[in-house]
Structure formats: C-alpha cells, structure tokens
C-alpha cells in the first residue's frame, strides 16, 4: 500500500516536473496521461474483471462530444458536460453489460466491437445528435479563475489530475473488497459465487466505473482536439489502442497501464519523428516482441516474479 502511494506521489511529481523538462512536448504529455488514464480505466473491466472490451472508444467519444456540444450549443462549462457524460456513459455501460455479460472470452470481445461500431454509425449519421460527419468545432470555453482551457498547459494539468485520479482509484480498488470480488470473478465465476459474490453485478459495477472514467478522459481529449469528427472518436483503432496499452503494460496490475502508455506513446512519438513512413511498421514489430517475450505484460511479468521471490525469501529466512 505504502509502496503504491509513494508511486502515486512519484507520478504526481514527475507529472509536475515534465512541463519544465519538455516544454515543447506538452501534446505528447497530454497524450501519455490520457492513455494512461484510459488504459487504467479500461483495465478495471479488461484486467481486474477479465472482460476484454474493444469498444471503449465509444466512451471517449461520449466524453468528447458532451464537452463539444455542451460548449458550442448550450454554453455549458466542461465540468458540467463531463458530469453528464459520466451519467450517460454509466447508463450506457449498464445496458451494454446487461445485454452482453452472458458472453465469455472472445465472444464478449466480439460483441463489444459490434456495439461500438453501431454507435459509430449512429454518431456519423445522426447529425442532430453529434453534428454528423462534418464535425464540430469547439469555439468557446469558460475561463475559470482566468484559466484559458484551450491552452495546452491547462489541458496538461487537467490530464494529470485525470490520470492521477484514475490511478488513485485503482490503488484503492486493489486493496478493497470490490477489487477482490473483481479478481475472483475474473479467475473463476463459480468459485466467486461460492464466496457469495454476484458475478454479473460485480462486472456491471466494473464496466460502469470503467466507462465513466474513460468518458472523463474523453472530455479532456475533446478540449485538446477542439475539432471533433465521429470517425476518429468512435474509431475501432482507438479502442484497440486503449486495450493494447493496458495489455502491453500488464493486465490487472496497478502500474501496468501507465507503463504501457509511457512506452507506447513515447515510442510512437520517437518512431514518428525518426522513421517517417516506416514508423507504424516498427511500432507493430515492437508490440509483437513485447507479446512474445512478456506475454503477461511488462508489469504483469515483473509482479509474478516478484511475488514468488518475496515468498521464497521469507520462507527461507
């Protein structure tokens, strides 16, 4: 516990120092923090509860669009829009989970793709709802305490708060009753039921929490882009990137998704600026290598070895 809280503190300090070290890479910083938050939120469902979703872009889209439509159509400040987005994401995930949680393994994963794709088509075609395919410009943001929310610095600190908040949530979950219920359901639903745990309810809670947190990050992402098109926000590839970040780092671990985000986003950025056309090819090779050599993810593999070493050391001495 103490270990994790120190980790959180280190993250916070590193996050606060980053803008001084890399003043001209704030966009990359925001991207890392958003992906860290998203992947950690994804991991509540995908890692801790063991239900791999490839539909989380839907919740990013909901967060971003609530902020955009709220600001442009109703002059609504983003915090109110994000609150609404949280509510909508929670309700949507509740219905979504009720519908699909009887599916397991790859079947559940396929169903998330299908639902997210249907939502993408709705976002593109129903222009009364989203502004449609031609997109929405965010042309206004409030200035609380004189802070310009369009400024990348402001967005950076918002993203930092978001990432730290999600990390704190997962640290709390990992120690709590809920966290053990999640792991029990992931490992074996029958054993979980024998311990008095309602698996469906547990998964629903995980999905709702995961979706709501993802939507919060989506709101910040919307502010950063400040021009939204459904194509890129409800995009299957974004869902895949979020899941990928979580899995590469280590599913069901506290620090895995963060490590995944730091690795993938910064590798992506370095490859982008150094290898031009070949950058995505090299990125693909990197992913494959990590999967082959660290199949439980970076932190996952580390934790497995650590637990065994700690036990062995205590048992001997």
């Amino acid at each position, binding site marked *: 516990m103490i270990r994790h809280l120190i980790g959180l503190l280190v993250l916070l300090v590193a996050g606060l120092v980053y803008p001084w070290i890399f003043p001209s890479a704030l966009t*990359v910083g925001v991207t890392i923090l958003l992906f860290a938050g998203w992947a950690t939120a994804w991991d509540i469902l995908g890692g801790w509860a063991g239900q791999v979703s490839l539909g989380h872009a839907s919740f990013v889209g909901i967060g971003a669009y609530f902020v955009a439509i709220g600001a442009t159509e109703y002059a609504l400040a983003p915090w109110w829009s994000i609150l609404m987005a949280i509510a909508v994401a929670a309700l949507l995930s509740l219905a979504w989970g009720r519908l699909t949680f009887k599916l397991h393994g790859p079947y559940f994963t396929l169903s998330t793709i299908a639902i997210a794709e249907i939502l993408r088509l709705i976002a593109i075609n129903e222009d009364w709802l989203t502004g449609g395919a031609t997109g929405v*410009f965010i042309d206004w943001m409030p200035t609380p305490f004189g802070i310009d929310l369009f400024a990348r610095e402001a967005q950076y600190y918002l993203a930092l708060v978001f990432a730290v908040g999600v990390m704190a949530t997962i640290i709390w979950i990992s120690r709590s009753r809920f966290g053990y219920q999640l792991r029990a359901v992931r490992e074996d639903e029958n054993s979980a039921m024998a311990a008095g745990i309602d698996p469906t309810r547990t998964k629903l809670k995980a999905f709702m929490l995961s979706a709501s947190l993802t939507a919060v990050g989506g709101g910040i992402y919307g502010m950063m882009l400040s*021009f939204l098109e459904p194509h890129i926000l409800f995009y299957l590839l974004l869902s895949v990137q979020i899941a990928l970040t979580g899995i590469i780092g280590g599913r069901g671990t506290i620090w895995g998704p963060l490590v995944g985000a730091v690795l993938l986003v910064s590798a992506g950025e370095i490859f982008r*600026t150094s290898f031009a056309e*070949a950058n*995505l090819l090299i990125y693909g090779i990197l992913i494959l290598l990590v999967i082959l050599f660290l199949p439980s993810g970076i932190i996952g593999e580390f934790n497995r070895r650590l637990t065994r070493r700690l036990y062995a050391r205590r048992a001997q001495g």
Partner: protein
Amino acid sequence: MKRILTAAIAAPLMGFALPAAAQVEIGVVNSLSGNFATFGERYLTGMEVALEEVNANGGINGEELELVIQDDRSEAQSALAAVEDLENEGVPLIIGSYASSITGPMAQLMTRQEMPLIVLGSADNSITKPGSDWVFRAKHNSTIVAGTYFDYFDYLREEHGEDDLQTVAMLYGNAAWPVSLAETGKELAEERGYEIVGDEAYDQGTSDFRPILNNFRAEEPDILYVVAYAEDGVAITRQMREVGLDTKVLAIDTAAALPNFVEQVGDSADYVATVVSWSKDVQYPGIEDLTNRLREAAGSEPSFYEAEGYLALMVAADALRRADSLDRDAVRQALDETDLETPVTTVAFDDFDGFKNQNPIRSLMLQIQDGEHVTVFPEDLAAEDPTYPNPSWDDR
C-alpha cells in the same frame, strides 16, 4: 541497430543544436503513414517539385528554402504534437494536412499560437468558415466545388433547354468531405430549381452499391451526383453499368479526378464529369512545363493532389519572399496580401460568404472523353466542349 537507436533518441533533440545557416525552414505536417498515406505521398511529390523550383530561382531572397517534414500518422494528436515540435524549431509557418479531422485541430491550435497555417489538402468548408486570421487556403472548399457542379448543370440547361435537366440523385460516403459536398449540393439544387429524387449516404468500405443504384434506377434521375473516394467511385461506375442505370449527366467527385480511374474502370469511365482545382490542359501559362515536372517526380500521370501540394508551397514561398522576415505576424501579413499567379491557379485570400482567408479559386469541370480528362467548363478555360447527354450503357 545501436546506431539507429541513438539516432532515434537524439533526433528530437537535434533541433536545438543545429543553427539555421543561410536557409529558411518551413514546417510541413503531412500524412506519410497510416490510412491517408496515399494522399500524403502525392502531396509530398508536389511540394518537392515546388521546392526545387523555388531554390532554382534564388530561394527565399537568396537563402535556401528547406522543408521540415513531420509525419502525422494520419491521426490528430500526432499532428498536434508535430505542430508543437515545429513551433519550437522556430519555423515561421506550417503547411498541413490532408484530412479535416487532422487539419481542423491544427487550425484551432495554430490560431491560438498565432502561427500561419497554409491548408494542404483539406477542403471542408469548416476549415475556413468561420476561419481565422491565421488559416489560409489556396485550394477550393465544398461551396466552391458544389457551385461549380451546379454552374455546369445550369450551363447545360442553357445550351439544351431547361426541361432536359430536372432531377438529381445524390450518393455519397459518410466522411466529412462527401457529406459536406452533398449538403451544399442539396442547398444549391433547391435554390436553382432541381428536384432531388434520391439521397443516399453509405458507410465507407462498402463496395456493393447495387441496392442503392437499383432504387435510383426506378427514379430515372437526369443527374447522378456522386461524392466518393477512389475505390468507391470505381465500384459505383462499374456497378452502374452492370445495373443499367442511365443518366444524362454522371458527376463523380474526387474519385473520377484521379488518372488511374480510367485504368480501373475502362471505357465505362467516358462521359463522367468531375470538378478539380487543377488540370493539365487548363489554359494557364506554364502548365505544360509543370505537368512534365510533376509527372517526372511522381513517376506516373500527376493528379490534382500533386498540384495542390505544389500550390501550397508556392504560396508559402511567395509570402516569405515578400515578408522578408521570419516573424510570424509579418508572414501572416504577407499571406493576407497574396496576389499570385501559378500554373495551377491564381491565388488571393479573400473574405466572402462567411469564409475567411479563402482563395476564391476557379474550379474546373473535367469530363472524361475517350479515356482522357478534358477541361470542358468554365467556357473561357475549357479545352473542349462537353459531350451531352451521356449515351445509354446499352449503346456503348
């Protein structure tokens, strides 16, 4: 391997170390990898041709012009990171990018940072309407393109009688550009007295248009107005013939403007009409020379994409020469006062109809005649007369 890695890590930091000696650098954000790389390649070719021309003619007031090119991986957040990076390197302006989902966020950011952006490929109205003081577009937009289509239809009406062209059916992909062009088209149809008898969007990646085309066949539209990217346009044309959907005018935007459209569709491509910002047979001085250079650089028949890449860089170079400074405000001022003639088109940035810093470019209507793209409208720039009406598929 080790060397590559070192280079990779060092590369982003190099910008600090290298002093800019007797050269002017401008930033380019372009889609070189990812889904839009097809277009990115062509734009790059066009810019390289322009770069060679600029430097052969004395560069920017004697200093060599250089491009600092960054890939945006066809995604918005990478483009924004690239802008930040380029701003840090001190470039006075940036050219970019292709998709509106990428160019839109760039425009927002650069307006905030007060840095001039010359739009490379994105044609959506939304980029320059309402627009900003810092965003300039030399190429066309949805309003201009849709206007050219309907001017052409009106012109055919004048020539052949109003009753001849009455009904329009529309078919378009669900991406930003096709939707925005279709929406503008619908407004114009209403204004100018055309009846819309069919209106269908499709999800991109669909390659079977038969159900839609069959429905249209029952409506017998005079005009079919299609907005589709390359492969969709080819599939639509092939399937129209297969289904036997005859129209007097067949307009296919974007897809039909590419040289290999004819290769992929064969003789069914004939009579298809399409609007472009540039054509190799347009009556502007220097056109032949430019076409040859573009062809050589591309290694194939050049398209409007290469031409637009060329145009964007020529506009940038012209403004930098006149500004005679790397100060962003001075460059913006110079861009504002642009009055340039190129073999692609003439450029001046105006505010009109709610647009800001938009070149009121004269778009061209091409028709494919005997497998060649030929400029047929407007009359003063035309190389040939349009063939009208399209013969029925059975008679070909």
